[in-house]
């Protein structure tokens, strides 16, 4: 360590005898300014680690599910080619049966209902519930009933989304308490088959915060009611 280095360290450390190095102390002044900046000392909240990990894990899970769905579709396409002729015959028979049924006084509109189990992500592992989706003239009514989620207030709220296999999302409503809430969707759950509930913040990006609390996938329960 040279004498010049000692002078520079002394100046940087603010020592009593640490005079400013002649001619080239500007870089040390710059460093001192950076060291005084809150950006150098501020620490993220401890909860951010869990939220970030949860967001990525959930994103990975969805990507995995989307790839699996794509694979299943490919296999199905292959299967359909094999069974194409038989299926066409069955469909034709079904169509005839439906027309006959309607003609025999079956003009009552059918109410289509779908249901799914929703469960908490790593951010809310104990949360669990159901979502019932009913097709109406106005769109799809979603009755969400979930236990184990805290009520949000003070600028934070929940937002529901329906998501398709490519990750595209449509918002279905915002709420504070998930125990009994009605959401509405203007898209078909046949394509947008995943329900996601995120935590949002007033004033932040109105888009998906990616802080997911609940996820449900259609196909866990399904029935048609005449």
């Amino acid at each position: 360590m040279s004498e010049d280095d000692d002078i520079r360290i002394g100046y940087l450390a603010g020592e009593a005898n640490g005079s400013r190095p002649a001619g080239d102390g500007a870089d040390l002044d710059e460093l001192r300014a950076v060291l005084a900046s809150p950006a150098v000392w501020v620490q993220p909240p401890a909860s951010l680690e869990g939220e970030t990990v949860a967001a990525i894990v959930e994103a990975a899970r969805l990507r995995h599910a989307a790839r699996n769905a794509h694979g299943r579709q490919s296999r199905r396409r292959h299967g359909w080619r094999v069974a194409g002729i038989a299926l066409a015959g069955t469909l034709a028979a079904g169509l005839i049966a439906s027309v006959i049924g309607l003609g025999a006084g079956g003009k009552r509109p059918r109410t289509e209902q779908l249901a799914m189990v929703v469960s908490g992500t790593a951010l809310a592992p104990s949360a669990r519930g159901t979502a019932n989706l009913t097709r109406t003239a106005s769109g799809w009514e979603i009755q969400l009933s979930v236990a184990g989620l805290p009520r949000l207030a003070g600028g934070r709220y929940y937002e529901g989304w329906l998501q398709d296999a490519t990750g595209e999302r449509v918002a279905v409503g915002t709420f504070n308490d998930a125990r009994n809430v009605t959401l509405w969707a203007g898209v078909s759950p046949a394509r947008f088959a995943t329900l996601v509930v995120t935590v949002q913040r007033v004033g932040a990006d109105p888009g998906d915060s990616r802080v997911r609390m609940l996820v449900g996938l259609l196909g866990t329960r399904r029935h048609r009611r005449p």
Partner: protein
Amino acid sequence: MPGSHWSVREAVTRPGLVGGRSARAGREVDVRVRKRFRDGDPDAVRVVYRAYGALVYGVAFRVLRDRPLCEEATQQTFLRAWQAAAAFDASRELGPWLATIARRVAIDLHRREAIRAAEPLDTAPADDPGLVTRPLTDAVLEVWEVRRAISTLPNEQREVVRLQHFEGLAHEQIAARLGVPVGTVKSRSHRAHRRLALELGHLREGNHSPPTGRSELQEAAR
């Protein structure tokens, strides 16, 4: 989801994964961790976050100066990094790449907020990220490098530096705050600043190479 072959505890204690006994900020993570991060392995995501989360947050704070927005920026940075990880060469360091993403995410958020606030241009500060990008890039890189260098200090030295520069306390005041002799504060301060100057390439003599990743950071920011 791929299975986890090692735990976070193992990852932060096994040499070579994140560099020894602690996940020091900015310490480069092992190539296996980078590959598992790419796959969305929760343990790897956690290890990468522990290595870089505070650095990313600091970069976001330099741009945004708002804690909730910084949290959003930090999460978005890691999420975007993960989403783009397939295109990332796992043999390269994650740090410079993450710093670049963090800077872009923070500036995007800043612009979004600025649009929302609809502040007139003449009230924007001179270093507003929406107005000046080049000096900001330098400032962001400085924050990243200085935080990384500070993370190499032992806790007691780091605290002295923080009290001195951030809180503006004199050595005597620091001694009183910490309950240690003034001489101890002075020696900790001297050792800490010597280490910082070495890490940051501020010493003129000897073989003082620039800090690891500095050139990559500058390259990535272009």
